[in-house]
């Protein structure tokens, strides 16, 4: 469903992406690995509309996304998290999450109508508010933050802040979920558990949902992915099932190193 074709992007002299192409199918989990600075984050910034590519195209169900604004792309169904945290630090954990739901969900109806119904105390507004709370709580419990829902986002430990980002995008599950290092700062066990939860969600969700996962924990990625894309120097150097990638000597050399 998501097709990335021939994307190139450079910043001044830095060629961050060179002719990148691959696709993500329904309910597929695609892992993206590659050395630091290989262009992984840049790629998802292009897909989510924050960067405009120099060339190439991104389509979701044959709708081209490259000219769309990030907000519109989110409403098309591509949800992402950030490698460097982007939380509203002065809001509570719960409020951060609710905002995620509100913002994503309102795209589907008119803003004006939303406000009006709220101003006029219409039952629909009330219902939506409760719904938002419920969904937010659910998302928080999914990532294991239920107990901290009243804390300010700024006061969370690093790993918990990463969890919160994830919860925020999960309030309204996107069709393509893109995660940039979701487990940074977590211990092996915690990371395992979190990734399994996400994978579960992807595999069991009612609507079809796919996952594009950027992660440096190689064993974990290879373990859960259906396919893994290896990037180096802005280009895709391999795109195959995990079993093959795991034994690719090139991948060992540039990425895993040692031994």
């Amino acid at each position, binding site marked *: 469903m998501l097709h990335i074709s021939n994307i190139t992007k450079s910043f001044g002299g830095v060629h961050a992406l060179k002719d990148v192409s691959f696709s993500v199918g329904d309910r597929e989990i695609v892992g993206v690995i590659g050395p630091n600075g290989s262009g992984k984050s840049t790629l998802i910034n292009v897909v989510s509309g*924050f960067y405009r590519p120099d060339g190439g195209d991104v389509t979701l169900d044959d709708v081209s996304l490259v000219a769309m604004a990030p907000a519109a792309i989110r409403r098309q169904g591509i949800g992402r998290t950030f*490698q460097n945290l982007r939380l509203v630090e002065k809001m509570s954990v719960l409020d951060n999450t609710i905002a995620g739901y509100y913002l994503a969900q309102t795209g589907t109806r008119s803003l004006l109508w939303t406000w009006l119904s709220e101003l006029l105390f219409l039952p629909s507004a009330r219902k939506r508010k409760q719904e938002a709370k419920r969904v937010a709580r659910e998302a928080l419990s999914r990532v294991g933050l239920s107990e901290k829902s009243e804390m300010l986002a700024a006061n969370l430990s690093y790993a918990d802040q990463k969890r919160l980002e994830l919860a925020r995008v999960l309030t309204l599950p996107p069709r393509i979920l893109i995660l940039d290092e979701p487990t940074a700062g977590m211990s092996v066990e915690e990371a395992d558990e979190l990734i399994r939860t996400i994978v579960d969600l992807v595999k069991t969700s009612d609507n079809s949902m796919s996952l594009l996962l950027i992660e440096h924990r190689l064993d974990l990625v290879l373990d859960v992915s259906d396919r893994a894309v290896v990037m180096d120097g802005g280009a895709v150097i391999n795109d195959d099932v995990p079993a093959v990638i795991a034994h690719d000597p090139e991948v060992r050399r540039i990425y895993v190193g040692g031994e």
Partner: protein
Amino acid sequence: MDYFLQQLVNGTGVGAQYALWCVGYGMVYQVLGQLHFAHGDTLVFAAFVGFTLIVLGMPFWIAMTLATVLAGLLAISVERVVYRPLISRNLVFMAFVAAMAAGFMLRAIVQFFWGVQPRNFDEGILPTGSWDVFGVRVGYLPMLNLVVAVAIVIAFEQFLRRSKHGQAIVAISEDRSTAELMGIQINRIIALIYGFSGVIGMIGLILYITNFRTLTIGLGFAITLKAFIAAIIGGIGSIRAALLGGILLGITESMVSAYMSSILLDATVFGLLIVFLLLMPNGLMGQKTQLKL
């Protein structure tokens, strides 16, 4: 043509005056990102003290030197007493309001001791004549302003470039807590900047006094406002920008009243500035902030 040149010179003179105020103000703004809204009032307060010293018989230049020192100290104390407690709590807007209020209080003190009458200085502190350059009148004092402003900017930029302070200041403006982790004594450096802003602003005010010979209470806020506008037009990022912003503002004002309407001066000048900002959203020399996610 002569008319145009004359007006250009006039505008540059006004702009050089703004620039000198703006360099001091802009320094705080450019390097610390703080709107120092007590700037003008601290200067005017110090100048009134200087005026009193003159009335008491002190020679002009000694009195004004003392006033300059006082301006620096006042600026440092405003930072210490008003800004720091609030900014360390991350209450930037509150700090801005409190600074305004500190300005109000200084103004009230001036009014209490010196009344609302403008104070006038004697003539002849500096020669006020002008050169005649191909029929265009170029005043000594506006040119002196310009030279001093440029000299200060160059000196300060050199100082920043050569000393470690330059880097430290940038670091502080980006992220205080991490800057502290580098071993930077942030409070000391901030005090330094405020002190400089007071001293440089005061130099500007002294030149103003030698030229126009009057001092009014209302001048303080006018200084702050012009400095603010000039700093924004210049763009956050360098002190040089403040200088350019000041001069550009002066020239724009002058050209608008020379060729358009003096009745709608503010409306026209601001209209132009807005258009300019919309075209150059980061000011004249401001850095475009790139987005990296």
